[in-house]
């Protein structure tokens, strides 16, 4: 009986607490509070005043049945129904026991062991269910907590996302402005590059100038000399005519004709040189045209030689050519390939001069070494299948492996500051590979010389 009240108190307390009746169901809260107080009062009365016990028993049954009814019927308490299942057997058993005690005293006396056992089981059931419920409740609240945390997390994430979006926008703006800056710088660089290419062209033209002057001077000397000779010969011819010595006149006439041919030949030679020079300084048309590669190579070899010769009076080297006459004309951009050949030849002459100077300054006593060393630059052309090879070979110091890796990089130069732009070979490389779908290779043996090979498809 005491147990009944305790159960009632516990259920009411539980309901108020878990369902938060004070806040959510104020009407029911009042009723529960009343039941709570009444239960405590009844409990106290039944303990203190034994005679009231039989009455209190039925009060307790009433209370519990009422609670059972409320839990079962009211939707507000749906979530607390698991408690109903927990207390239901006990209430029924307890009520049934009291009814049996009252009306079938005899039956109770003979069966009370079983009835007590039933009550015991109902209590066990109740306790077990309560424990299970408590556990479930705990798990549930944990789940709730988790959901709450997740929601919190989501909120934080959303906030972070918004912040990130702002940051991304800022970064994007920054990047855009940086991109614009870079574009601007790139444009400037492109402009500078074309200026550099122009100055590289001019530099190589400068190297050529003295050579060109020499190359033009020679034919001009011949033109002047032969025309002067012809003037003399004509005077002599007039004398011979007046003397009537027509044998002499014939001989003189044929001499004059020969000389005229020489004049014409040397005039054309000078003309070709000037044209070549103009072609070199002119920006490339980018147009491929049938070109005699042998003539081009030979012309630039001599121009480069005389150019260096004019600059450095002590400079001397043997020029060798081994030109394959079966090549004929090949389709190339003559200015560009001319520039490549000139660049390679100038480099070759530079290399042999370096070696010679090195021998002179390092071992001033060893005259033999110097006299044994013959600076030589060889230009070879050769047709192999569908390709034409142009080789520029020198017997200078060769290229160290470390340097070899970098020679085609822009601005790389081994020459003292101010003497090389470092663009010669990189431009040459571009002209051969990009402009002509060819190859430019360097083969070298340190101390023995270097060979540059241009391979062009025909």
């Amino acid at each position, binding site marked *: 009986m005491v147990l009944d009240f305790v159960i009632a108190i516990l259920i009411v307390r539980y309901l108020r607490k878990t369902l938060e009746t004070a806040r959510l169901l104020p009407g029911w809260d009042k009723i529960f509070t009343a039941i709570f107080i009444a239960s405590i009062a009844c409990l106290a009365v039944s303990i203190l005043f034994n005679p009231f016990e039989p009455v209190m028993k039925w009060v307790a049954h009433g209370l519990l049945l009422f609670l059972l009814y409320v839990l079962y019927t009211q939707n507000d308490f749906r979530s607390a129904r698991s408690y109903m299942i927990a207390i239901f057997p006990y209430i029924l058993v307890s009520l049934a026991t009291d009814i049996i005690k009252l009306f079938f005293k005899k039956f109770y006396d003979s069966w009370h062991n079983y009835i007590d056992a039933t009550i015991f089981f109902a209590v066990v059931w109740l306790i077990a269910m309560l424990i299970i419920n408590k556990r479930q409740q705990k798990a549930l609240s944990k789940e709730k907590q988790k959901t709450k945390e997740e929601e919190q997390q989501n909120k934080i994430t959303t906030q972070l996302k918004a912040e990130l979006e702002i940051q991304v926008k800022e970064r994007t703006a920054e990047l855009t402005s940086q991109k614009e800056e870079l574009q601007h710088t790139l444009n400037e660089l492109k402009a500078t590059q074309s200026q550099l290419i122009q100055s590289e062209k001019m530099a190589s033209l400068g190297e050529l100038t003295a050579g060109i002057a*020499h190359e033009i*001077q*020679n034919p*001009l*000397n*011949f033109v*002047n*000399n*032969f025309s*002067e*000779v012809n003037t003399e*010969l004509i005077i002599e011819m007039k004398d011979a005519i007046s003397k009537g010595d027509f044998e002499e006149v014939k001989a003189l006439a044929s*001499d004059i004709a*020969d*000389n005229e041919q*020489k004049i014409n*030949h*040397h005039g054309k030679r000078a003309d070709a040189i000037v044209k070549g020079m103009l072609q070199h300084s002119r920006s490339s048309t980018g147009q491929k045209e049938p070109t005699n590669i042998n003539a081009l190579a030979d012309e630039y070899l001599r121009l480069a*030689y*005389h150019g260096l*010769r*004019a600059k450095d*009076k002590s400079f*001397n*080297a*043997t*020029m060798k050519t081994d030109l394959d006459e079966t090549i004929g004309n090949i389709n190339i951009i003559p200015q560009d390939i001319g520039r490549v050949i000139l660049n390679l030849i100038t480099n070759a002459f530079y290399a042999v001069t370096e070696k010679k100077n090195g021998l002179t300054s390092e071992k001033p006593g060893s005259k033999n070494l110097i006299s044994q060393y013959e600076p030589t630059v060889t230009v070879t052309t050769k047709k192999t299948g569908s390709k034409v090879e142009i080789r520029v070979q020198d017997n200078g110091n060769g290229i160290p492996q470390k340097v070899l890796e970098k020679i085609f990089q822009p601005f790389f130069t081994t020459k003292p500051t101010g003497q090389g732009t470092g663009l010669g070979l990189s431009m040459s490389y571009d002209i051969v590979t990009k402009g002509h779908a060819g190859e430019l290779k360097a083969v070298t043996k340190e101390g023995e010389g270097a060979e540059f090979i241009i391979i062009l498809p025909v």
Partner: protein
Amino acid sequence: MKILVVDDEKDVQVLFEQRFRKEIRSGEMEFVFAFSGEDALLYLNAHEHEAVLILSDINMPGMSGLDLLSHIKQKYHKPPPVVMMITAYGDAENYKTAKELGADDFLTKPVDFAALKEKLKPTN
């Protein structure tokens, strides 16, 4: 008088033969031509003491005129031929080097043939 002309320009031969046609015809002068320093040395080795005057270009591929000059002046002592140097670059340095090496005269291109004839006459 036998004159050896050394120049890498082959037309120099025709030019000299025309310029000095009278002297050649009269037998006053005889011209021999070499188109490189190496050729000149070969000729001099083969025909020692024949050429009394050598006219050499300085600027030639391979053995330069100055190399040739030093060879001649070192090897052909008695009597060394007269060597006149000709160059397209009338610069002081070449002039000085040529003189140091024992060149007897120095001419600049374009050769003034009238002046050259004048110079050749006294040696004749």
